[in-house]
């Protein structure tokens, strides 16, 4: 039985999702519009035997989160664009050293202090490429309060399964929105526990970690000897630094990429609505997907065949779904609160098989359904619309 239906804020749902996922450590520095996550966890974590630390800044926050995770705790931090930028170097470290952790970025208008209280989707490429060097990443995008909860749980599960930092990309609209939801209880959830490597300590060797058998990261202080480094390391020699052998560097780099990309179809989740007979698709994520859903319903009432493809996983890019969409529809409309960040990605994946129409907005206001409806009208210029957009 789920919990009783009640009014929950998006940020509060993230905090409750983290608790339900077994997170027991939070380190962060408050920043609008993410602060409620820290506020709720400062109260909730001590109640469940966890730890909350307000750090001196975001650089220290991600450092503390990585440290807690290496010691065996499920750990997270929450921030917004400026803080997310400060965390990028250490996100690269977590990626290189394969440290599971969750970073919540509640996006606001930027760059810099920008529009601190207004929504944006300007960090979708920062989530993918914000840190330096070749790496892979997982990023999830909630578009409701219920998903703030469920995707936080999912973020922890993926971070444990793939031994990687996972980004939850919320935004000011979703984070500060309140909805009536019945949150699931702990026994209704699938929660991945970290576990131990499936070999004895004497045999423990990272070479055993293949893309098909990604062994859990043993905690510091456990019976496994653990070496943690940001340098290129030799997975066949217990992870000791090895910078003099190009094949080792290449092997590690490819492994770090493939452990995510090889599983892309298992990781990437997409919601498709009214796509069976769609001639035009809207590709929209996060808060904007709600406007897109309203526009899609309007279009269907008007008798034109429009569908919605909503990526829940933004990274790795949901290639299979986009590929399928490109084969089926003649036009893909990509509304987003940035200037073409995902639209370029869609265009590259579509490769000319369908027309890609971008629609950006960077004034701190949520894209409205009418804006998308106007774009739909153009694609069906020959149709008589009963209602104006």
């Amino acid at each position, binding site marked *: 039985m789920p919990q009783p239906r009640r*009014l929950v804020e998006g940020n509060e749902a993230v905090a409750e999702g983290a608790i339900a996922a077994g997170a027991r450590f939070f380190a962060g520095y408050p920043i609008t519009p993410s602060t409620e996550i820290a506020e709720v966890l400062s109260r909730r974590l001590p109640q469940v035997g966890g730890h909350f630390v307000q750090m001196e800044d975001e650089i220290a926050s991600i450092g503390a989160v990585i440290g807690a995770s290496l010691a065996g705790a499920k750990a997270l931090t929450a921030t917004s664009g400026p803080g997310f930028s400060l965390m990028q170097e250490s996100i690269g470290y977590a990626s290189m050293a394969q440290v599971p952790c969750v970073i919540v970025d509640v996006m606001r208008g930027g760059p810099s202090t920008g529009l601190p209280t*207004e929504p944006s989707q300007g960090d979708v490429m920062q989530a993918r490429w914000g840190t330096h060097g070749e790496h892979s990443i997982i990023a999830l995008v909630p578009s409701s309060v219920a998903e703030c909860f469920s995707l936080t749980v999912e973020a922890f599960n993926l971070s444990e399964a793939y031994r990687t930092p996972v980004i939850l990309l919320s935004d000011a609209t979703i984070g500060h*929105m309140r*909805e*009536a939801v019945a949150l699931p209880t702990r026994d209704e959830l699938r929660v991945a526990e970290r576990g131990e490597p499936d070999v004895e300590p004497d045999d423990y060797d990272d070479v055993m970690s293949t893309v098909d058998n990604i062994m859990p990261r043993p905690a510091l202080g456990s019976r496994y000897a653990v070496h943690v480094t940001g340098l290129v390391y030799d997975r066949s020699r217990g992870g000791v630094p090895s910078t003099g052998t190009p094949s080792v560097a290449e092997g590690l780099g490819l492994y770090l990429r493939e452990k995510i990309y090889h599983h892309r179809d298992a990781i990437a989740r997409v919601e498709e609505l009214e796509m069976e007979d769609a001639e035009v698709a809207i590709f929209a994520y996060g808060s904007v997907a*709600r406007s897109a*859903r309203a526009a899609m319903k309007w279009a269907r009432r008007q008798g034109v065949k429009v569908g919605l493809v909503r990526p829940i996983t933004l990274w790795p890019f949901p290639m299979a779904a986009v590929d399928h969409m490109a084969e089926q529809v003649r036009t893909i409309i990509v509304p987003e609160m940035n200037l073409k960040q995902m639209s370029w990605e869609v265009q590259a994946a579509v490769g000319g098989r369908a027309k890609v129409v971008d629609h950006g907005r960077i004034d701190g206001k949520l894209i*409205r359904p009418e804006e998308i409806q106007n774009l739909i009208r153009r694609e069906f210029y020959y149709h008589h619309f009963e209602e104006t957009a």
Partner: protein
Amino acid sequence: MAESGSPTRAPARQEIRLSGSGGQGIILAATLLADAAVASGREVIATQSYGPEARGGASKAEVIVADDEIDFPEVTAPTITVCLSQEAFDAYAAQTERGGLVVYDERLVQATPLAQRRLVGLPFTHMAETELGKAIAANIVMLGAVQQLTGVVGAAALADAVRRRLPAKIVELNLRALKLGHAVASGPTGPRAPA
């Protein structure tokens, strides 16, 4: 308490916009209203918009109550608008749907007539100050009045929301504020625009 303001079935979608200045408790009022609406079993969504200032600056919060799934989370056709500042009245009163209701603080707002909307000015801040000794409770007096005038949520559900959401030591004061709002809205109302 009877749902005095809703003689017929509630419309499929109701949109309420509360507006004023930062520090007036606009967002808290919207949260309480939305919380009370959850009890009806309908879909509810509340959003907020405010500036970076801790106090002052424009503040706006919106509540949508609907029978169906709510997609776009912001108000598009508000049937109830509350304005607790002149700036808010000037910006939002005229955006109220025809046939809708505009409620404002008559001591803070110089209202201009609006065709086909019902305008109700009440002294929320003044009453909170004189009757409760707490001007800061004006937002809750306003909520009590909006409940009385519209029946958009039940009075009991609203009181429950106050008990659930607010710290124990201020619950009693705020329940009195709700009752004060009910009382003031039951009395003579403000200027009415021509229908």
